[in-house]
């Protein structure tokens, strides 16, 4: 007996929805095995990783706080991914957004103006878009692979940030630490729930989800991008502007990542540090895929990914496991999703190898 994949006549929409759930389930099972191998009680570890972090209001607030940049970036990336524009440098665009927004905050340091914060949002978006414009320009003008260019720029962005906080923007009273001054209140997102770190940035992310839905699923441009992603030749035949879509896909992703970066420095961090993100730009790629490039799916997937971040921190504190477990779980989740996706286009069929078939025939005769 052997298993064989058989192509479905049409992709199964049901499996499209079930596959992320299957992937999440498989990740949890793999987690159980991993915890057991590491000599931890799997049930207790599971509780610490997935339940303990969100047991109270503060935990929920943290969950939403970390989900905010993830959903924002992922919905921006989804715009490009739908058109097969592979921007994987969101992490760098996030850093540029943080730098631009941080620059505004430092320039207007101590200002009472209500406009500092909105200006930081705009600056963050511009920073992210500028960084994303480089791969867009090189791709449309010189046919250069946007995957490699956007990724290389992540390293450059981090080095740029490192230079800024070490040299020109370093806080002279910061005991020689590589960091800028703490932003003043007008340059920080107001809290959404008193006593927690959840801030107004969450609302911006929710707005982005709604805007993403309107754009991707309800607008003609969004439709064009989907066509370009599914059937390149059809899009060309229809006369859709291919270069325009590359630009749009990358700029939307860059703007979203830039605003997310702004949200980190105007939110939980409150200043520029050598590192402003625990890999949100990369994790958002997984969020986009697990969310099926659909804004509602992305919203749910961002909550799951955020929980993985919190779980990693909890596992470090309570179980003495390295917080790098987060990355491990994130990677596994994406693997299982890609594997489960096979059931969308194929069904598994049990076939008898020729020898067994012959034997069966003999037996029948």
């Amino acid at each position, binding site marked *: 007996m052997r298993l064989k*994949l058989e*192509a479905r006549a049409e992709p199964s929409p049901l499996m499209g929805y079930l596959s992320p759930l299957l992937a999440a389930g498989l990740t949890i099972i793999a987690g159980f095995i991993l915890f057991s191998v590491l000599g931890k009680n799997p049930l207790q570890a599971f509780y610490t990783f997935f339940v303990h972090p969100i047991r109270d209001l503060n935990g929920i607030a943290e969950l939403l706080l970390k989900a905010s940049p993830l959903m924002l970036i992922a919905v921006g990336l989804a715009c490009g991914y739908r058109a097969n524009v*592979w921007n*994987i440098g969101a992490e760098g665009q996030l850093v540029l957004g943080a730098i631009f927004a941080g620059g505004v905050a430092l320039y207007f340091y101590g200002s009472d103006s209500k406009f500092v914060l909105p200006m930081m949002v705009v600056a963050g978006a511009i920073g992210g878009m500028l960084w994303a414009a*480089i791969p867009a320009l*090189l791709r449309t003008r*010189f*046919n*250069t*692979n946007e*995957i*490699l*260019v956007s*990724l*290389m*720029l992540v*390293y*450059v962005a981090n*080095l*740029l940030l*490192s*230079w800024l906080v*070490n*040299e020109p923007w370093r806080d002279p009273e910061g005991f020689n630490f590589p960091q800028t001054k703490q932003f003043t209140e007008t340059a920080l997102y107001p809290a959404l729930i008193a006593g927690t770190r959840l801030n107004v940035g969450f609302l911006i992310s929710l707005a982005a989800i709604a805007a993403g839905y309107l754009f991707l699923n309800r607008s003609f441009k969004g439709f064009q991008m989907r066509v370009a992603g599914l059937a390149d030749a059809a899009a060309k035949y229809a006369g859709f502007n291919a270069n325009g879509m590359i630009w749009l896909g990358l700029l939307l992703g860059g703007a979203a990542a830039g605003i997310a970066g702004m949200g980190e420095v105007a939110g939980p961090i409150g200043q520029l540090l050598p590192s402003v993100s625990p*890999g949100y730009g*990369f*994790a958002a*790629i*997984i969020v986009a*895929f697990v969310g099926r490039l659909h804004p509602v799916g992305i919203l749910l997937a961002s909550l799951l990914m955020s929980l993985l971040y919190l779980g990693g921190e909890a596992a470090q504190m309570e179980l003495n496991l*390295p917080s*790098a*477990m*987060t*990355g*491990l*779980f*994130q*990677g*596994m989740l*994406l*693997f299982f999703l*890609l*594997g489960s*996706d*096979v059931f969308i*286009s*194929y069904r598994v069929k049990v076939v008898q190898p020729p020898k067994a078939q012959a034997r069966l025939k003999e037996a029948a005769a």
Partner: protein
Amino acid sequence: MDTIVAILAAAIVAGTPLVFAALGELVTEKAGVLNLGVEGTMLVGAVSGFATAATTGNVWFGVLAGMVAGVLMSGIFAILTLNLMANQVASGLALTLFGVGLSAFMGKPYESVTLAAQAPLEIPLLSQIPVLGPVLFKHQILVYVSWALFAGVSWFLYKSRAGLVLRSIGESPESAHAIGYPVIRIRYLATLFGGAMAGLGGVHLAEFYTPLWVEGMVAGRGWIALALVVFATWRPARVMVGAYLFGGVTIAQFFAQGAGVTITAQFLSSLPYLATIIVLVFISRDMATIRLNAPVSLGRPYRPD
């Protein structure tokens, strides 16, 4: 003169991880498989090799472990893309993201461990040649291994029958299948070979070059290796040239600092990444070159029925 010799020798050492990873990826891509997981594979190879060498005290066990880890990593990729028909771009990204997490996780206990530096192997007679001797023949063993790999890959791809079959699969899996070649099996082998070499590149970095384990220490070299394959228009000899050029750019910062040049460290560190972008632009500008040289079926899934 001594400085120039030192720079050239150092460029070769710094370029060696790229040679391993890029030649491995070249073979994979020649079979039509685009594995973007090189960075993650190198990281897992590096940490596996380092941990094994630190635990057993034998660097060669470490080398073996790093290669096995590379095979296992690329095996995951092969199952996803060749059996389960997953998108190669997405699966490669997944492999890298997974590798970053896995290596950080595995490497935690080894962060403050150091390995003894490996003594270079001086080739008798040859290493006595002025200039060329110290540049080429006073290296650690893996550098010589990388040259053997270059010779082997060049011979295999262009002089052997098996290499011809592999290339034909990269050009047209349909025709190769029709003739009766096992497309999936050969793509598997090519992918696993690429993984083993990426693992070896990581091992060279962690066990011989630095030699220590730092989280994320591959620092984009896996991606640069991918760019090198494009830059080299899928030819082994050009991979070598490119790898050593990048090795030179990588070490430029140390020599600049040593020479008392006051250029911002961060700017010098960003040079390899900027250089990658520039050479990619330069080579991709001419669409025809890429189209003529890239394996036709690169990145395209194939399922024999």
